[in-house]
């Protein structure tokens, strides 16, 4: 976990894909998942407590929460719900996905689930200008 968070912070990625040993995409880990870990679990669950107006805390409280996860493998905390595109996805649909996620999209093989690469909005805009 510590390592993954390091990558996110150093490169300022919003998220990175998480793959298993065979290169198959199993999830996505990013700032969203990270922020989620720093609040009481029930606050981010459906029908939970979405606002927590009554909690008073300081920086040390957040650090304490984060320390609990620091040495765990990132696969456990990767988010399983994520958008992907395939090599044959139409461009309009891809642009629409980029618009909805505000994030890079992993490109995944339709059959094997292998991670083939990442496409960002910059890639598309640059191609348009050339």
């Amino acid at each position, binding site marked *: 976990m510590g390592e993954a968070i390091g990558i996110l912070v150093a490169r300022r990625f919003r998220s990175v894909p998480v793959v298993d040993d065979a290169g198959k995409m199993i999830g996505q880990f990013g700032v969203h998942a990270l922020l989620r870990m720093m609040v009481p679990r*029930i606050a981010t669950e459906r029908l939970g*407590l979405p606002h927590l107006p009554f909690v008073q805390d300081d920086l040390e409280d957040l650090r304490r929460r984060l320390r609990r996860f620091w040495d765990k493998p990132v696969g456990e905390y990767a988010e399983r719900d994520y958008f992907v595109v395939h090599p044959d996805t139409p461009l309009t649909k891809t642009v629409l996905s980029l618009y909805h996620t505000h994030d890079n999209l992993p490109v995944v093989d339709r059959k094997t689930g292998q991670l083939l690469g990442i496409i960002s909005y910059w890639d598309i805009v640059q191609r348009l200008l050339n």
Partner: protein
Amino acid sequence: MPVLLALLILFVLGSRRAREPPVDPQPAPIVHSPLVPVLLQHGATAVAEHGDVSSVIFGWSAIAVATTLFGLTYALIMTERFNRANVAMLAAGLMVLLGVINQHQAVVGVDFNTIGLLIGMMLIVAVTRETGVFQYLAIWSAKKVKAKPWGILLMLAVVTAVTSAFLDNVTTVLLIVPVTLVLTEELEVPPYPFLFAEILFSNIGGTATLIGDPPNIMIGSQVEYITFLDFMVNLGPVVIVVMIATIFPIWLIWGRKMTASDEARQRVMEFDEKAAITDKPLLVKCLVVLGLVTFGFIVGHPYGFEPATVAITGGALLMILSNLGRKIDEKNERTHHFFGHVEWTTIFFFVGLFIVVAGVEHAGLLNMLADEIVERTEGDRAAISIAVLWVSAIASAIVDNIPFVATMIPTLKTVIADLGMSQSDSMALWWSLALGACMGGNGSLVGASANLIVAGFAERAGQRIKFTTFMLHAFPMMLMSIAICHVYITWRYL
């Protein structure tokens, strides 16, 4: 393809009935139903009596079709393989399509007093939950006991019980459990004992009033002479005794070993409960309407104002009040949202079940069941009461108590009529049914909807509650509570 299966079974059954003389009814597809022995003994006469019901298609026997549908419905609901509302609605549709009853009889069979009361209370709750009053209560009570874990457990259990008595259990735990999980996470104690206590107390507390639990709502709606106050006066005392008795084992098993660091307790003490109230004017409106509605329940009965009228009017009034000062689009949006918060799956489960029960009642099955009860117990009121208490408790621990109670109410009504009991004599039966069905829900994780809701929360919070672990703790406690009820009923009514 359960539908096709059902149709196939019906067809086979029906065609056989058509060929054979109607003296040897064998409702083979419902071997697991507790009604089979009854049917086997009484089937012959009953079919002869009701054989003239000719509106059923292909000239099938009404009682066979109705019983088969009834058995299949309950079996499918128990397998928990399909959505229960869906199954009940489809079965209700088949009751009408196959001609056991017509649509008019089906509509008459639906107890709209129960339905209206449920919808009205759900609407009121949908508005009230937005105010944050439940979080306020939970945090306030936690701080009252200086954030000591055992104290918090006790306080939360009592808050759960009192809230469950006036709102439905599912809503209560939906609102209390998330705060509980935040508190236990801050205190770094395992949440299981807290959730366990809340499950038990939500079911026990719900037993105390007419509106606390679906079985009580149904009994209160369908038995005309029982009032809101009757429930409080007759069930309230035993509920308090059971609550006190339940606390002891919880203390022995978990309570005495609970500790939290001073640091953790300090963090909880820093919580600001006042910040939990998100909308003070709305809270005032909610409390006013809830007060009016409770007042209406208590004084309405002699004036002929039924609970459904009171609850629905209260719901509409609260929605209008909560929408004052907003634009019309927003009003419509919010009203739509409040209606969306009503548990329609539960409502339509009720509607479907009422129709299915109306079908078997119309076909004569419930009369047979009532005769059987009278015969077995030799018409002894005490024996019937105690049997109803224990059978409802065990049944409710294993299966959903709503279908059970929906079937038992018309059956017991017939028993009462058969034995020519007076209203005051018959009370013991109704209290036995209410106590057994409500408290029996504590017997297992699937015994009541609130239990499953809590388990769902625990799982999402990474603290799974195992079915067997829960049963190991809960079943003995349920038996203990029923034993207390047994003594209470014998002492007070028999």
